[in-house]
């Protein structure tokens, strides 16, 4: 007779699942920071005064937003080696997540910058700030605070996107859960445990967003 949930089996597969969870965590964190940087680059390209570069930037954003992540993952996985760039699967995965979500992050940045009132720019120009000083000390600190909730969403969406990386053999959490399931033909335990692991990581992320908003929110209204 088999129980619905076997604790001994759960204990047996726990180490493998934890290793998978670590990979998922690394891929999410890596992908998240990649998307923050790639988003800034995409926005800068799209806003370039050089029309060709601006078109390239906007075209790239369109392309990244209108094709499935799975395809982008495959393309990077099979195309980069042809171009002589050989990366670990997890690195390729981080890059793919960063590109795909970077296109959305670029939009969030744009909204953040557009929310800065014109009067701020009048003051900045009249006080003779350089572009760099203006962005570094005045614009970005103002633009980023309202972005925290949407960047928090990006993080959690990215976490839930990581199973796609299994397609390019990244041994992340779902990969490990599937593996454990297919070896024993028991899926209830690995899937339940994986779900709990995703839930815990999402909750931690949500809590981090909460703390960050509190910190930023109490400094100025």
């Amino acid at each position, binding site marked *: 007779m088999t129980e619905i949930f076997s604790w001994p089996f759960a204990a047996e597969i726990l180490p493998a699942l934890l290793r998978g969870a670590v990979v998922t965590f690394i891929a999410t964190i890596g992908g998240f920071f990649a998307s923050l940087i790639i988003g800034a680059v995409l926005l800068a390209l799209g806003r370039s005064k050089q029309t060709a570069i601006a078109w390239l930037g906007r075209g790239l954003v369109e392309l990244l937003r209108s094709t499935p992540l799975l395809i982008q993952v495959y393309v990077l996985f099979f195309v980069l080696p042809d171009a002589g760039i050989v990366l670990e699967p997890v690195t390729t995965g981080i890059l793919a997540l960063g590109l795909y979500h970077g296109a959305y992050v670029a939009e969030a940045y744009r909204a953040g910058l557009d929310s800065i009132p014109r*009067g701020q720019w009048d003051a900045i120009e*009249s006080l003779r700030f350089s572009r760099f*000083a203006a962005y570094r000390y*005045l614009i970005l600190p*103002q633009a980023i605070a309202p972005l925290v909730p949407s960047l928090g969403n990006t993080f959690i969406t990215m976490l839930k996107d990581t199973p796609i990386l299994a397609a390019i053999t990244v041994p992340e959490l779902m990969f490990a859960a599937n593996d454990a399931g297919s070896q024993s033909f028991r899926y209830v335990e690995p899937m339940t445990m994986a779900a709990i692991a995703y839930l815990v990581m999402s909750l931690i992320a949500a809590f981090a967003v909460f703390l960050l908003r509190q910190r930023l929110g109490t400094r100025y*209204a």
Partner: protein
Amino acid sequence: MSDMITFDKVDKRFGQTVVLDQFDFRVARGEKVAIIGPSGSGKSTLLRIIMALQDIDQGKVSLDGRPLWDAAGGKHRIKPTRKHLRDMRSLVGMVFQNFNLFPNLTALGNVAAAPRHVLGLSQAEAEARAAALLAQVGLSDKLQNYPATLSGGQQQRVAIARAMALEPEIMLFDEATSALDPERVGEVLEVMRALAHERDLTIVVVTHQIGVARAIADRICFMEGGRILEDGTPQQILNEPRNERTRAFLRAVHLS
């Protein structure tokens, strides 16, 4: 006396709207001028051109004898490069109707930011300068306050200190007291009046509050339709206006 601000037959249009029409204007060094006139007559545009926030279509504008704008038929004869504009802006400070303080910085941070990051003073020097200026505008006890926790009058005093921190020779005030509660106007006016006592500081205030013009200016210009229609001492303009349009405007202001 040498001219601090010179407008020479300046045209400025926004699409079909003519904002300045063959506009001539001179302000001597150290003079305190108030510009009054109906809404939409181009007063803010005039100040923004002096602050190099707005260009012109035709004519010449000079500050302290140095050309700022020189245009003919919408073409700039002086290239408005970032460097040129930043150079010219070192002569001018501006105070805006809505204060435009940086919400992410304290009062002290707002005033210290430009000395620190534009002039390159050390943090300690910049903050010392900022604290001294904030003391002058009566805000020594608010150095660490963020703008959101200050009243309108206090915010505008921070904004004045911030503009003064770069030691301009010309100060522009665009409806600086218009967004304030009536009982808060006095504290800002007090600060402006103190600045007006500085002999060498050239001041141009735009206002529709006659009391403000009277308190600050030794000369008042009435502007309408992109031109100055009347120009004289406060006593003459306010008490015995010659132009019919000036009289109509003053009647309307007194009624409101």
